[in-house]
């Protein structure tokens, strides 16, 4: 058992870990040191708004009546993140901040390299535990840091240009909890899932039903891309005084890229939307 030096609560503490996080106030204790810089990104999007954002997103090929789909489950998850300050000696100018997921199996899949938005933070209040699930980190900061390989690699690339070997050192700056909605809805007897950033309302990803019209459009686009590319290939060959049949074949082969992508969309069991740019 461990007693939190900040709020006095007692909690289970498996031996052998370097970091312990109080499940009541979020204070981190490591080797006798207390880290109080634990904060929470404020959830500003409620369940109704989260569903509205998902069902009204209108991804390509979704049915017009998707907003009338039945919400079946909604869970607000507070996912733990570790914050690091990373330095590269002897090149102090390369120092940077980075955040890494402190869980090995997050309840909501985050896009790779997800950039957290610039939004408000709030301090931990026990009342927040009534609206969402606070997840305990199951990775220690050393293990979670390995996910930041890209950041370290980028700095090493720069260092190699300066013909220097850098030593990577990091300091643990604290923890943040990030709120994410995991949603489930039903349409036409099938269940679909979605995830929404509860701090700024971005739909991170969603599964959705594909309408007949959406599939037909996808198939028509695939055929148009293939046909157009074949015709233009023949014309291009004719223009440079070659056999148009050979040009048509070339155009058809090059057009398979588009045709494959569009046909895969038209025949998929369900549509998938992923956010691309963090605004």
């Amino acid at each position, binding site marked *: 058992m461990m007693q939190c030096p900040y709020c006095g609560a007692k909690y289970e503490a498996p031996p052998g870990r370097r970091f312990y996080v109080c499940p009541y106030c979020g204070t981190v204790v490591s080797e006798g040191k207390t880290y109080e810089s634990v*904060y929470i990104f404020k959830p500003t999007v409620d369940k109704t708004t989260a569903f509205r*954002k998902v069902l*009204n*997103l*209108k991804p*390509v090929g979704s049915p017009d009546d998707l907003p009338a789909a039945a919400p079946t489950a909604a869970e607000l998850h507070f996912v733990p993140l570790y914050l690091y*300050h990373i330095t590269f000696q002897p090149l*102090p*100018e390369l*120092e*940077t*901040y*980075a*955040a890494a997921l402190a869980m090995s199996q997050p309840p909501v899949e985050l896009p790779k390299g997800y*950039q957290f*938005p*610039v*939004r*408000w*933070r*709030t*301090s931990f209040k026990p009342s927040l535990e009534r609206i969402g699930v606070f997840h305990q980190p199951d990775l220690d900061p050393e293990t979670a840091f390995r996910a930041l390989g890209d950041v370290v690699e980028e700095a090493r690339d*720069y260092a190699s*240009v*300066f*013909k220097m070997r850098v030593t990577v050192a990091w300091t643990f*700056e604290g923890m943040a909890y990030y709120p994410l909605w995991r949603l489930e809805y039903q349409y036409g007897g099938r269940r679909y899932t979605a995830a929404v950033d509860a701090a700024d309302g971005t739909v991170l990803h969603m599964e959705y039903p594909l309408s007949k019209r959406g599939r037909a459009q996808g198939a028509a*686009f695939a055929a*148009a*891309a293939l046909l*157009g*590319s074949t015709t*233009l*290939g*023949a014309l*291009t*060959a004719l*223009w*440079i005084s*070659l*056999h148009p049949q*050979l*040009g048509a*074949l*070339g*155009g*058809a*082969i*090059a*057009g*398979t*890229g*588009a045709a*494959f992508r*569009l046909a895969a*969309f038209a025949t998929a069991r369900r549509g998938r*939307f992923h956010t691309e*740019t*963090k*605004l």
Partner: protein
Amino acid sequence: MRCSYCGAPLDVTPDSVVVVCRYCGRPNFLVGNPSDVLAVPTLSSSEIVKRAVERTRRDVNLRWRISDINFSSPDLLYLPFYFVDVKLSADYQATVVVTYTETVYVKGQPRTRAVTRVVRVAGRVSLSDVVAVLARRAAWGLSVDKLAEHFLNTAPEPKPLAEAVQQTSDAFLAAEITPERAKAKAVRAVIPRLLAKVNEDASARARAAVGALLAATFIQDKAVDYAVERLETSRLTYLPLWVVPYLYRGSYYHYYVAGWDGRVVVAEEPAFAEHRTASLLSAVAAGGLLGGLSSALLYTDLVMGAAALAGGAVLTYLAAGGLLKSRRVEA
């Protein structure tokens, strides 16, 4: 925390920069000396919506659909920045592979042949810029970059924090990093551009050395020694960013608007039929032209022809992505 004027309790969060007391209405500054912090005053919320509507009226795609668009009330965020004036210089030595074609005459007949030469060059470049550093850890958004860029282009005058704060005290986001760390972040932001400039300079010197100004170059190796010549930071400066939602046929989209002049710095918009048509046409053009031209290559070089065809297939695959997008971003 208690109000320094009337002693009433204050609602404080980790992002509290200035808290207006609910009882006496006076602002309490939690950022040390507020005169050391600057903020750019913002237009009012109604003025921001007005500018957003004006932008919609001018937009090529949205102007025809404006009757289907409804704007909602916007949210204000005051983002903390340091503006760092940085000048770096770099001495370098590089090995550059230069490839160019030259015409030789064999028995009076002109023939073109490719020549590859390896050249060692050395030089010095410098780069100076003002870099906007967001004073938050591990947070980013496209609108943050665009807002700072628009600030540097338009240069509105920041005022001391106490003057800029009216009833917008909840909108401020606390700074998390010190000016020293902001300086380091600025240098890191400039280093890739400095290295790109080294590549450019080394390529130009190598081309000049072989006397072929249109030659293709490849930097095989380089050693760079850089020095920081100037590194000064501004005071912490808050910039107002408004997020303006609008509803188009049941779906919400957002404008990100600079608070001082109402300029939309990032606009999220629906993808319309005209955008899908453009994507389809670009897929057809890429596939048709590359496919047709590679058929000529197949006659002379089978491998190159096959590579060009595969390249065409990849290009059309990428172009088809535009047909599957429901939203676009204009920045």
